[in-house]
């Protein structure tokens, strides 16, 4: 039906998250139809990113410079570190513009099932940063799952000797959430975390 180049493009697009073979075909077709406006700029952008992207040696974020833009920003509060599982979580928090400290990307969660041990995560790096950078608070922004919170407790234990405040994200009713539609676990967490109004 199509030449091997287009077939390869569709196969590669089909490997992206959220895209299956059918949607990859549609995306490839859209790119081809918008050759000047989309396909060529995308190819250039991909090449540029592939050549320049690197992992920040300080926090583990992706950027084209090392240290990344977040770590280079002098206006950010150095005494606050927010610990996240993955770069996608860091970018999600950055979207809110609510956090003005710095980050540490762990690179996963402790999981015996997946064979992830403490030494596979950036926990030692975090402890060293807390010690060297006069950090006063570490915010553990990890998933509200058994693995996520097991990792959070492990990190809290590892930081105990450093005399730093360790906090975690609140759990409960999401903005716009109606109680009737919430699962029992979220409701229970919300009740446990209630606060004076």
């Amino acid at each position, binding site marked *: 039906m199509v030449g091997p180049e287009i077939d390869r493009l569709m196969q590669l697009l089909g490997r992206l*998250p*959220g895209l299956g073979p059918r949607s990859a075909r549609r995306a490839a077709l859209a790119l081809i139809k918008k050759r000047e406006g989309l396909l060529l700029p995308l190819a250039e952008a991909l090449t540029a990113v592939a050549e320049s992207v690197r992992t920040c040696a300080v926090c583990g974020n992706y950027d084209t410079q090392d240290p990344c833009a977040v770590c280079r920003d002098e206006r950010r509060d150095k005494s606050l570190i927010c610990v996240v599982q993955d770069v996608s979580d860091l970018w999600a928090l950055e979207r809110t513009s609510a956090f003005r400290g710095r980050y540490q990307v762990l690179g996963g969660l402790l999981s*015996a*099932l997946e064979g992830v041990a403490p030494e596979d995560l950036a926990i030692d790096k975090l402890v060293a940063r807390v010690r060297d950078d006069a950090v006063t608070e570490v915010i553990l922004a990890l998933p509200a*799952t*058994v693995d996520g919170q*097991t990792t959070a*407790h*492990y990190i809290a234990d590892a930081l105990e000797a450093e005399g730093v405040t360790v906090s975690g994200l609140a759990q409960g009713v999401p903005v716009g959430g109606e109680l009737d539609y919430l*699962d029992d676990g979220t409701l229970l967490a919300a009740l446990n975390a209630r606060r004076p109004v």
Partner: protein
Amino acid sequence: MDWRDEGIVLAARRHGETSAVVHILTRAHGRHGGLVRGASGKAARGLWQPGNLLDVTWRGRLEEHLGQFTGELLDARVAGLLGDRDRLACLASVCALAENALPEREPHPLLFEGLRLLIGALARDDEWAPLTVRWEAALIAELGYGLDLSECAATGATEGLEWVSPRTGRAVSDEAGAPYADRLLPLPGFLIDAEAPTDRPAVVAGLRLTGFFLERRLFPALGRPVPPQRARFLDRMTG
């Protein structure tokens, strides 16, 4: 074919973008795996967490297939434990032990009921720590490495049992064991007497006792190491 049963989620491994391969300890079908479509979705991600009690339905074209699970939450126990270090470590440990030690599709109703009770106790303020030791002892026994705590292996005495022989797993009385105390494992009283104290030192002694047989007998026979969650739990209890 299909069946419906009560089950406790032991482990969930992500499969693809939105699905997961989940292992559940069920009452009548033992530890059973199955694919859960949409397990990472908004509505379902809280459901398939280790420790949750579910009403599950398994469907597969053939019995030997992996099949698919669907489920409904019966008791959301995990949410209440996430903030408690000791209890969460305990939950992670017992789920990992069951996941790694129990054979697939072999019913162990006693262990299921024990785990159900234990997780219920974890969610309340019951005495969950001694229950954990008892459940681990039951796991060891159920898989063929049971401790014999009925009488002293040396004298036959049923009173004053203070030790367990690491070689035989049999109880030893204080009198008979005294000369070998450094080689015997302390036996916490609550394992033979329901009225005995269940304070932290007794629980730790119990965890060391069951831990010895998990590490030296059960898991070597299975050809795999004790899951690291067990060591983390013991660290928490001794720390």
